[in-house]
């Protein structure tokens, strides 16, 4: 991970934004930003004034190649833009911490479902005024991994976990695409005897393990780098499979035998699905031997629960 980035910002007329952004696409990390110069508008949505100046920004790592890239951007601008009126590119060094901290400032404790209570790690849960004895408290430092608990799909999965695990201790659970570990922790705190968290992102595995320890369920959660293929290879089956990823990925995994990781009589919880993709996902679930029996909607997001019939 880079600890610092170089930001290059260029002010342009709206008609030149495309050309400048195309140029910066070649040097920037994963795309560019185009924003009204001056940033803040403070006007009503239906009274937006015409744009007279835009700022195009791109970012690249502040590593050994940064001075060369900076020179290349300067040269390319000089050659490509010719007579166009654009500002001199402004460069500045940006700490990765700057925006990570900015995000934290907007993250507050909140309730989900009947008794799940999500609390950022940097807030003392004992100071929460509405804390109840039977709360399932999850303290979380989402870091850069997915799963802050604020996404409707994650919240629907948390409610599903409450419903599926209540009064049924001792279940074995897999969390495919564990991200921050929020769903694994919820399952472990509600009676699961074994939770396997898998993610193809190494950072997510580390974050899940750290969050599991912080929540006192480090011994129940086993997070590791891996995917569906590793589960199928080991012929693992679970009482509950949590798959909060994306429709496209779920459909692909169905074609690879996703249903086989759910034991007969077990349940899969599938999230990250937009409303108009429900039919396609449900059909794929049927094809892999699961029977969808419940849709949990929230806004344009849906979580589908599907059961594997007893053989």
């Amino acid at each position, binding site marked *: 991970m880079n600890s610092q*980035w170089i*930001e290059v910002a260029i002010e342009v007329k709206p008609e030149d934004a*495309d*050309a400048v*952004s*195309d140029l910066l*696409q*070649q040097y*920037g*990390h*994963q*795309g*560019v*930003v*185009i*924003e*009204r110069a001056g*940033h*803040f*508008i*403070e*006007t*009503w*949505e*239906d*009274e*937006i004034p015409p744009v007279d100046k835009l700022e195009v*920004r*791109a*970012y690249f790592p502040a590593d050994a190649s940064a001075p060369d890239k900076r020179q290349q951007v300067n040269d*390319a601008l000089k*050659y*490509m833009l010719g007579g166009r009126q654009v500002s001199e590119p402004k460069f500045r060094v*940006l700490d*990765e911490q*700057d*925006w*990570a901290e*900015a*995000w934290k*400032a*907007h993250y507050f404790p909140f309730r989900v479902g009947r008794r799940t209570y999500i609390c950022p790690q940097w807030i003392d849960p004992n100071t929460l005024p509405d804390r109840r004895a039977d709360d399932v408290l999850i303290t979380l430092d*989402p870091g*850069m991994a*997915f*799963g*802050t608990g*604020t*996404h409707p*799909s994650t919240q629907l999965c948390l409610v599903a976990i409450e419903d599926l695990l209540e009064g049924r201790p001792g279940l074995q659970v897999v969390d495919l695409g564990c991200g921050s570990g929020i769903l694994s922790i919820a399952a472990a705190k509600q009676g699961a005897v074994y939770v396997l968290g898998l993610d193809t992102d190494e950072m997510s595995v580390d974050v899940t393990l750290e969050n599991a320890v912080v929540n006192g369920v480090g011994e129940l959660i086993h997070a590791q780098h891996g995917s569906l293929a590793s589960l199928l290879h080991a012929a693992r089956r679970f009482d509950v499979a949590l798959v909060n990823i*994306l*429709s*496209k*990925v779920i459909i692909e995994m169905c074609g690879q035998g996703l249903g086989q990781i759910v034991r007969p009589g077990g349940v899969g919880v599938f999230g*990250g699905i*937009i409303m108009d993709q429900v039919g396609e996902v449900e059909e794929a679930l049927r094809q892999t031997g699961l029977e969808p029996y419940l849709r949990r909607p929230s806004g344009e997001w849906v979580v589908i629960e599907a059961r594997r019939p007893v053989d």
Partner: protein
Amino acid sequence: MAKKLKAIVTLQLPAGKASPAPPVGPALAQHGINLMNFVKEYNAKTASRIGEIIPAEITIFTDGSFKFRLKSPPTAFLIRRAAGVDKGSSTPNRDKVGKISRAQVKEIAEIKREDLNAVDVEGAMLQIAGTARSMGIEVVD
């Protein structure tokens, strides 16, 4: 109901591959946006178009809420893809790096028409052809 705007930010990102790293992180965190929500939704909506650059126009309101809409890929990206080249010419007047046909220009104009100010496809085609020339890509019959 109208809401008060804080900012309008357009992110040109590779489809299905947005992450909290730059440019998304610094662009959105400064406005207090739940950038994880944006990343997940953007990836969900663009996952079937891997390989394309899909801009997202994000409208951020003063109450912390936001909405976004996907726009058509940037004109320059569509031209480069049609011409089969990685980048435009650094000296477009002198050095040509590729060619696209009028039919391809029309195809791009159809894709871009909603996002351009052109009154009809012919007007959009003129804009596309102009952009192609500025990239050192010839338009041929």
